[in-house]
């Protein structure tokens, strides 16, 4: 109107426009979106013809079962058990083949090193250190991941996974977190680093951070072997043959539930303290069920997940392998560096019902959780390189002769469940959050939880004279 007569600055016009815009709080932008959708509707009406599909009815039938009050939860649990069972039993044979193949190649490497006349320490660091540790991690880690991730992606592709979030959301709502966190936890069972990456599916930054920081509270594939072995020796093994398997399965399930409980509790505490703010919400799309596309499943699970995680693990494990060999083979007086450090750490470990060697194994195991038990055996037997165990009985003998009681075993189980994330996960957390502060917190939360739980249990048991 007056623009012709008195020229005004752009900022004046801008502020006037802002005043006008703010006088219609939402309706203006709503109108734009509504118009866009109106246009789209008209266009689709003209160009799209569809037949009445039976698909919707099929989806409804499946959802009637999958999200029902009675079948919903048991079905989820059953699927979880099936996935674990397939992963663990299926990984056995390929793991054994891989490790025998890779360790046979280690002997060949040794021959070549001798042939070129390499000094013993070069052979030690490169072959017994770097190569052996890498071989170990690949043999133990690759087969379960190559089974778990495709199974998980299969469930994802079929459209079932969002139903898990749908079923469990009310529990996460109570912890002021997002129901989609249940999916990132499922992913964490496979690998916590992959779990942390999967937190991208959560829209709200606050809820995403909660999910990232608590992902380590569910045990990953790398920790399951430790949990299973220790629990079958000390918990399942305490019962007579027909019951030991069942008791063991119950113990593992109990530990998983404990981890889930801790996730919810810590999520809730975080929402009350440092991650207060915007109220949580959920907008979850429940896609149609469909037949999984095998090609896509294999590509996504093997390339995106398995190899991605393995590559990161290898980058970190290689130098860690060298370090472990050096610590195991440099002697200070009578003992290796590991033994020396372990004795130094022993009083600290004893407070929590562990010992110095166990603490040391967990510290070195930051490279990858898979190598905690092999490091522990290596230091107990002072062999200088990672040790395999011949049988559960042989392992039991070694552990008991090093002063393990049922309390030590339970503390090791609890500490396996609740301790710092492995370096791959820490690296991923750094990448996802872009801040050292959150990495530090993701380190501290499970560690403090584990130390508290072990301390209370140990001191309580000692006070009551149970040990």
């Amino acid at each position, binding site marked *: 109107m007056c623009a012709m007569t008195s020229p005004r600055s752009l900022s004046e016009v801008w502020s006037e426009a802002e005043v006008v815009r703010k006088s219609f709080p939402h309706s203006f932008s709503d109108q734009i979106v509504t118009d866009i959708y109106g246009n789209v509707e008209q266009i689709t009406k003209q160009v799209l013809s569809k037949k009445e599909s039976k698909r919707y009815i099929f989806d409804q039938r499946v*959802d009637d079962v999958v*999200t*029902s009050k009675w079948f919903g939860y048991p079905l989820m649990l059953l699927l979880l058990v099936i996935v674990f069972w397939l992963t663990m039993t299926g990984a056995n044979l390929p793991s054994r083949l891989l490790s025998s193949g890779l360790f046979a190649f280690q002997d060949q490497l040794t021959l070549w090193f001798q042939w070129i006349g390499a000094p013993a320490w070069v052979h030690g660091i490169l072959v017994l250190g770097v190569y052996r540790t890498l071989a170990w991690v690949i043999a133990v880690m690759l087969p379960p991941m190559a089974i778990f991730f495709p199974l998980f992606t299969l469930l994802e592709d079929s459209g079932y996974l969002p139903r898990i979030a749908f079923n469990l*959301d009310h529990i996460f709502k109570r912890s002021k977190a997002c129901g989609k966190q249940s999916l990132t936890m499922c992913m964490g069972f496979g690998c916590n680093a992959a779990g942390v990456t999967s937190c991208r599916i959560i829209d709200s930054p606050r809820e995403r951070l909660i999910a990232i920081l608590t992902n380590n509270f569910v045990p990953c594939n790398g920790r399951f072997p430790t949990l299973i072995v220790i629990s079958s020796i000390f918990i399942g093994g305490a019962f007579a043959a027909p019951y030991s398997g069942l008791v063991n399965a119950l113990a593992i399930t109990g530990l998983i539930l404990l981890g889930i409980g801790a996730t919810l509790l810590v999520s809730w505490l975080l929402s009350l303290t440092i991650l207060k703010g915007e109220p949580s919400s959920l*907008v979850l799309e*429940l896609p149609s069920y469909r037949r999984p596309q095998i090609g896509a499943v294999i590509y996504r699970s093997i390339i995106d997940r398995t190899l991605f995680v393995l590559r990161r693990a290898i980058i970190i494990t290689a130098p860690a392998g060298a370090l472990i060999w050096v610590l195991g083979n440099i002697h200070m007086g009578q003992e290796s560096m590991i033994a020396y450090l372990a004795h130094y750490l022993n009083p600290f470990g004893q407070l929590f019902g562990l010992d110095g060697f166990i603490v040391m194994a967990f510290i070195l195991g930051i490279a990858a959780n898979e190598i905690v038990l092999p490091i522990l055996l290596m230091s107990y037997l002072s062999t200088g390189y990672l040790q395999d165990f011949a049988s559960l009985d042989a392992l039991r003998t070694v552990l008991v002769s090093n002063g393990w009681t049922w309390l030590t075993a339970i503390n090791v189980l609890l500490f396996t469940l609740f301790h710092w994330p492995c370096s791959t996960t820490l690296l991923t957390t750094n990448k996802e959050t872009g801040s050292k502060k959150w990495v530090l917190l993701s380190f501290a939360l499970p560690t403090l939880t584990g130390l508290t739980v072990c301390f209370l249990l140990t001191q309580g048991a000692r006070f009551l004279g149970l040990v």
Partner: protein
Amino acid sequence: MKKTQRIDPLADLAPGSVCRIVSLELSGLLRRRILDLGIVPGTLIRCIRRGPSGDPTAYLVRETLIALRSEDAAQISVRTLLNGEECV
């Protein structure tokens, strides 16, 4: 076809019933997400089912099934349609 003039929150809708969105009282990130999904004034929405514990609830909008929590659905006003005036 007769329409009821009553305005209700979406959360009060019983499974099976169809309604038309009147307005959104949501704000921030959630408002954006809801608008992005095409839940805008005038859209038809059908309540499909509740979760096993009664929350969240799945709604059918534009042939897509979307789950919302009751707190969030309570901030969306709708007008219930009688006799299923139009089907979603």
